[in-house]
Each structure stands twice: as C-alpha cells, then as structure tokens.
C-alpha cells in the first residue's frame, strides 16, 4: 500500500522532475493507440495506452489525481517498446517520460526485503561488473554441462518453478566456457582491404551468453573491411537499469562507456543488440543535465550504428556472396532498433539478398514480441498474451526461420516456438549468425 503521505511526496517529485513541455506536447490525437501492444491486448483500455499513460503522468504532475496503485500499475505494464513514438505527429518522446516517471516511483518505493535484495544484487552487484556476469553465466554453463540440467529436468524440480521460467530455462543457449569468456580480443584487423575503423560495443550478456553471436558480428565486420577495436574498459549499456528506475546507476555506466570509446579514433561504434543500441543512442538525453558530459554523450551517439546498418552502408551484401539452403525466412523487428535507432530496412535488405531465401514479411513484424527486457518474467501474463499473437503471425508467414536482432527478442521467440511445440521445424536466429552462415556457405560446400 502506498500511504497518502508517500503519494504526496511522489506528486511533488512528479512536479519537480517531469518535463512539462513534453507532457503538453501530446495533443491527444490518439494516433498512437493502434501501435500499442498493451492497448490492444487489454481490450482497448485507454489507461493502458500511451495517450492514457501520458494523461495520467500529466494529471499526477498537475495534481489532478494521486499517483495511486492503479497509476503505478499501468506504468509497470508498459513494455517500453516505444512503438508509439514514430507514429506520433507531435514527436512526443514517450520513452523519456516513462523512464522519468518510473525512476521517480522506484526511488520512492519501499520494496519488500527480498525484492530489495534481488534488485540490489541484479542492478548493483551483477550487471555493472563484467567479471561477475561471466561468473553467473559460467555457473549456468556448469549447470548445463555437468548433467545437473538433465537431473533437474527429470526430477520434476522444474515443475515447481513458474511455467514461463521453466520454459525459459529450456531455450537458453548453451553457454561458452569460462575460458572462452575470459579470453576476448581487443583488436581485429580487416580481412578485406580496410575501408573503415570501428569500435565494437560487446555488451554484458552478448559477450557471455551470446558470445558466438559477438564472434560472428566481428567476423562480418572484418569481412566487410573493418578494422575493429574492442575496448576492455567498456561496461553494460545500463538499459536494464534505466528501464527499471535505477537511472543513477545507468548514468554511471553511460559515463564509463563514453570514456571507454571516445579516444579510439573510430568512424563508428557498432552494436549488435537493438536493446542496447536503443539505450546507447539515448545517452545524450540521459546526461542532458550534466554539462561535463552532454557534448561527449552527443559525439558518442553520433557514431553509433547497428551492425545491419553499417553492413548495408558498406555494401557488404553486394560484395560478399550470401547463400543458404532454400528456406522461408521472416524477420521480427527489435523494437528499440526500429523505433529508437530507426533501423528497419537494413536487416530486411540484408536478408533478401541471401540466395535461395524466400523472405515473407509477417503481419505486424514491428509489434513487440513481449520480451521487453525482463518484462516477460515480471509481467508474464501480458507477455505471453502478446507472444501468442506474435506466434500466430509467424504461423501465417509459413517461415521456418525467424530472424531477430536482439538477444531478448531471440529468447522470447524461441520461447514462443517452444510453447507452440514447433522447435522441430522452426529455427530462431540472430541476424548476424545467419549472415555469417550465408557468407561462409560456399566454403563449406
């Protein structure tokens, strides 16, 4: 329960911190409604729409209503996919409003002791430290390799865990060994004649659990003629923190990354995870009130590009022969890659230039899959409802390969395939893994 006194404090914070211009900018035209997954899945509840949520944030700021549990709840239920932003005629930065509101609420919230413990562990002790991330993922590897996994699955222990979590456990990739995770390169030369010098943002989860995908990304960059530097002192992007109301930690990580990348004399900074990219490209906003960092954040942002975007720009798909066995492929947009980094056509161009591929665009490919960071764990009911709709569209597309551009989406789509019991016929892959396979197809024949 939030007491009246707490509500008053919250209200003051809303008044002090929410961007009034941005709130007013929403002209309530409603053009965002059809793009909002929670509006659709809630059976058109205005309170679960971007327009409704902005109206609520404004009403709290204006003192028209109290920030009660209903308001808090609907802000929690937002996926943060930001599909409402590209369709907004006024250009309202909904994502920024949401982040600020969530931060205000999180800072005032008295979590229960176990929740506090978990939050501290995840946000402060785990993600900011890459060595601990390696350890955590390493433990998972131990679990997978020692036969513990088999025992756990057989013993029925998994049944004690909530359904989606145990299904999630099934779709996790086989993780690399500690040794592999520790010995990472910090420089790679181009394989073709050099056309660009780039830095690679390797990410926390990407450089552990999805290490193979990172390797594939770097290989593609090398093939495309890029010289790559991978600074050792980079950190997690901070998205998880930013989206969960831990803005201060996010800012610290942003500063760490900006510093790590700014003196490398590179043309671009490359990411391969839409979720990270979408947060990295917002560093200028995150640090807008910090005169020391504002401009540095801006130049960081200006260099940022998704892997698919740079590959298209350097015409990788025209220079390297891409070929695969015949199959129907579909692409699921990463929300933050599309809506925040504005990269939507590049992945499609790349996929359609692979020989033997039949590309079927699925209906509403630009709608969130329901992964949304840790949303599928904390809001599993809504997440699964959204996923079910998504899997129906996959079915209509007849695709046997679903391509994604972000690890969260990848796991969620795998989960969807698992839930539909389609894993024998449907693959889910990250775009770079598929592209590398296509680039190396001839070598393996």
């Amino acid at each position: 329960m939030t007491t009246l006194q707490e509500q008053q404090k919250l209200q003051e914070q809303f008044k002090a911190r929410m961007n009034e211009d941005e709130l007013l900018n929403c002209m309530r035209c409603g053009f965002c409604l059809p793009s909002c997954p929670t509006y659709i899945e809630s059976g058109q509840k205005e309170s679960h729409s971007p327009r409704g949520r902005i109206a609520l944030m404004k009403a709290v700021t204006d003192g028209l209503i109290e920030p009660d549990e209903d308001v808090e709840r609907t802000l929690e239920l937002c996926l943060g996919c930001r599909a409402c932003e590209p369709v907004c005629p006024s250009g309202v930065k909904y994502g920024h409003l949401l982040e600020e509101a969530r931060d205000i609420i999180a800072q005032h919230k008295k979590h229960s002791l176990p929740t506090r413990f978990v939050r501290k562990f995840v946000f402060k002790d785990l993600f900011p430290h890459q060595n601990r991330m390696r350890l955590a993922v390493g433990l998972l590897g131990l679990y997978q390799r020692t036969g513990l996994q088999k025992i756990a699955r057989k013993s029925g222990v998994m049944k004690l865990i909530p359904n989606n979590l145990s299904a999630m456990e099934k779709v996790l990739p086989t993780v690399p060994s500690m040794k592999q995770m520790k010995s990472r390169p910090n420089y790679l030369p181009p394989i073709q004649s050099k056309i660009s010098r780039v830095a690679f943002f390797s990410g926390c989860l990407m450089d552990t659990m999805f290490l193979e995908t990172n390797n594939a990304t770097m290989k593609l960059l090398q093939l495309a003629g890029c010289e790559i530097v991978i600074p050792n002192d980079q950190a997690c992007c901070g998205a998880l923190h930013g989206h969960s109301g831990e803005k201060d930690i996010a800012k610290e990580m942003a500063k760490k990354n900006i510093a790590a990348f700014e003196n490398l004399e590179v043309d671009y900074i490359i990411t391969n995870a839409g979720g990270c990219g979408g947060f990295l490209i917002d560093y200028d906003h995150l640090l807008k009130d910090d005169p020391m960092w504002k401009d540095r954040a801006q130049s960081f942002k200006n260099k940022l590009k998704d892997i698919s975007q740079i590959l298209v720009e350097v015409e990788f798909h025209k220079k390297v022969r891409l070929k695969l066995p015949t199959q129907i492929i579909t692409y699921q947009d990463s929300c933050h890659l599309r809506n925040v980094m504005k990269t939507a056509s590049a992945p499609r161009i790349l996929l359609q230039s692979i020989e033997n591929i039949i590309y079927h665009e699925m209906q509403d490919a630009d709608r969130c899959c329901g992964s949304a960071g840790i949303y599928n764990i904390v809001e599993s009911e809504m997440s699964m409802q959204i996923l079910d709709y998504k899997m129906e569209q996959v079915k209509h597309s007849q695709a046997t390969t679903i391509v994604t551009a972000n690890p969260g989406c990848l796991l969620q789509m795998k989960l969807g395939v698992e839930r539909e019991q389609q894993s024998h016929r449907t693959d889910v892959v990250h775009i770079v893994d598929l592209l590398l396979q296509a680039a190396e197809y001839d070598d393996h024949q």
Partner: protein
Amino acid sequence: MVSKEIAQRLIAIVGEANFDNSKMERLVYSYDATPNLQSLPDAVISPRSTKEVSEIIKICNENKIPIVPRGSGTNLCGGTCPTNGGIVLLFKHLNKILEIDEENLTITVQPGVITLDMINTIEEKGLFYPPDPSSMKISTIGGNINENSGGLRGLKYGVTRDYVIALEIVLANGDIIRTGGKLAKDVAGYDFTRLFVGSEGTLGIITEATLKLIPMPEMKKTMLALYDSLEDAARTVSKIIANKIIPTSLEFMDQPTLEVVENFAQIGLPTDVKAVLLIEQDGPEEVVNRDIELIKNICEKEKCISVSVAKSEDEAIALRTARRSALSALAQLRPTTILEDATVPRSKIADMVQAINEIAQKYHVKICTFGHAGDGNLHPTCPTDARDHEEMERVEMAFAEIFEKAIELGGTITGEHGVGIVKAPYLELKLGKEGIQAMLAVKTALDPHNIMNPGKVFAKDARKRMVVSK
C-alpha cells in the same frame, strides 16, 4: 452523480468488469483530441449488446445522469469530453462486422469497428468505402457517423452521411428503433437516418449501422502542382471543376504551411512557393489518363511553376508525403495545436485563405492553412501554447473572426469536425436564432431530460470557444 445504488444496478447489467469508477479510469476518459479541454466523468461503462445499452439508458434517464458515447476519442470539437460529468459509454465490445452483403453492396457493422479495419476487410473483396478521415487508423465507425466525418475524398465521393443507409438507435427513453434499410429508395416517414448522422450523440445512441459500398475504382493517379500565387492555385481549382472534372481529391497547402513542412520534412519544396495543390484522380484507366492530362494543362495555363505526375505508386506516396506531413510539422512547432475546419464554397477559397492570413497578422498569431481545396474545407491551424493565456485570448479572437468570415462568404463554421463544445457558441452564426430553436425542439422531443451528451452543440453562453478544464 452516480450513487452506490445506481452503480450496483449498472454492474448488474454489464458485469463487474465492464463498469469502472476508479479515479484512473475516469481520468483517462476525461478528454478527447480537442486541445485544452478536460472533465472527469463519474463512471465508465462498456455494454455488450444493444439490450444492455437500452437498460443503461433507462437508468440514466430515470436518474437524469448524462451519458456520453465515445469511440476512440479522436474528435476535435470536444464531442466526447464529459463536460457535465455522468457516464462515458464505450463500444469496445460492440466492435463486430455483422455482415457484408455483396448482392446489395452493403456492410452492417457495430459502432466500435475501427474505420480502417472495416476498409481493409471490404477492399479485399474489391469494394470501396470512400470516407477517409485522417484518424481512420483508430477512429470508430460509430464516431464517424456521430460526427459525420469527411476526409480527403469528399469532393468526388461525399462524406460519411452519403454512405449511411440504415441505423439501429437506442433513444433516451430506452426504446430501440431501426431506420432506413438496404434500399436506394425509401421515403417511408421522416429520414431519421440523416438526422442521426452528425447528431454528435445528442439524440440517441447508435448501436448498429448499415453502410453503402461501391465498386473499387480500377486505378488512381497522383500529381503535385506548385504556384507562386494563391490566386492562381485557387483559380486552378475552380477551372478544373468548371471543366467538368471531379478529381478524387484536390488538396491545398498555403505558404506558411509549406515553410513549416519544408523545414520539418526537408523534401525539397521550393521555399518561395505560395501554394501547393495535390491532385488525385481515380477510375477506369483511360478516364484517369485523360483527366490527369487535362488537369495538367489547366495547371499550366493557370501559371503553375511546375506540375509533376507520379510515375509509380512509390512516387505517388512521396508526393502525398508533403500534404500528409502538414499536421505533424505544425504539431511539432509549439506545445498546443488548434486545428479548425472553416469551410467555404470552393469558389471562395482564395478569399478565405487571404482573409485568414490577414486575421493572423491582425492578432499576431501564426495560422497555417491547408486542407481540402476541392470542397472548400480548409484547416486553419494555429500552433500555440495553452499556458500563455494572453496569446490564447488572441487565438480565440482570431478564430472568431475566421468563423465570421467563413459565414460571410457563404460557408460554415465546421465542415467535418463537428460542433461539439468548442464551436457551439458560433452555431447561431450559421443557423440563426430560429434555426437553433428548431434544433432545440427536436432535441427536447427526443431527449426531454437532456441526458444525451449534454453541453454539446447547444451553447450555454455567448461566444467563448475555449473551455478550460473544470
């Protein structure tokens, strides 16, 4: 007020899940797309059938509780803002397409169907429903009917009114009536169908509608003409029609709009251009080609700077982008955007645009005008800031003068957005005292307790366009 006892009776009708009077739910139904207007309802209700609507209305009538029907809340006249409190009635359960009749070329729908969803469904069958309000991606058919929505294709194909041929309506006493039918000819009794289209929820609740469909035109072509004089552009519009060509759409943007659009979209519009016409024609191929050629000649004769016909659908989309981005470009200028729809006979377009520019100068406000030149329906749009009360006063006065000018030129205060609450004070300008009295007689006869969307269409006091939050 909705007492506990009444709330219980309403819940008994629709079930717990479909009645809500929490602060949050009331707040999110306190507004629509009209700037600077907000007022909380007492409760929100979502009936599942016409019968439930009737039962709800009986309770409201008995207890004199205002009832405000609301689709997606995209209207621009304050039509769905519950200014007098009461109950907001939602149509989220009444959202089915009931029948597509390919022999009679009709579609029967419930009011909650999204306009674009319906259009997509019938276009798959090669059929065509022309009204295309710019909010159609989310607007509901019920909302379109109640506001008599227009769109870009009004010139050639008319507006919502021209396609509604039958309605099911729940009256204020709970009676359910059916009007019209799948008939091209029907003179049995008063034309209630037409009366209820555009009645803005003030006479009854529409619970079902049958709409007329037409065959899909074979093809469409798009062109863009640039002018360095407003008069030349306006004369082109008149000449096209005088030459007995009725294009699908004949869209217009004035110089202030163009400046903003170019600044925003950077699509290479010449900055010294005074006006742009976007012209589309559809129909059988040979007719479209002939018309487009004729229109091109007219444009050139009337001294356009340049005229280009799209060679592909992609090019057509690019041409439409200029017109489509008008609202976005304007909306991003300042926090508040006031979009009106003063309408004049098409022969008076140049006079009206000229007058709008002069009025804007007189009151030191920025007003950009774009809109549907072919049917005289203009959208003078003012980017402003609701927090600046002094400026809002001037905006208010400027629009009052624009409405007066439109009437003077033989036009109207609203072409397609509706009267609602924001234009109610100006309705008398158009209808006269006697006209309002006649309307009031109809209203009182059908809704004696004034529970149907009260406070709309009929003005409480003299001129005052803005209504600030309660």
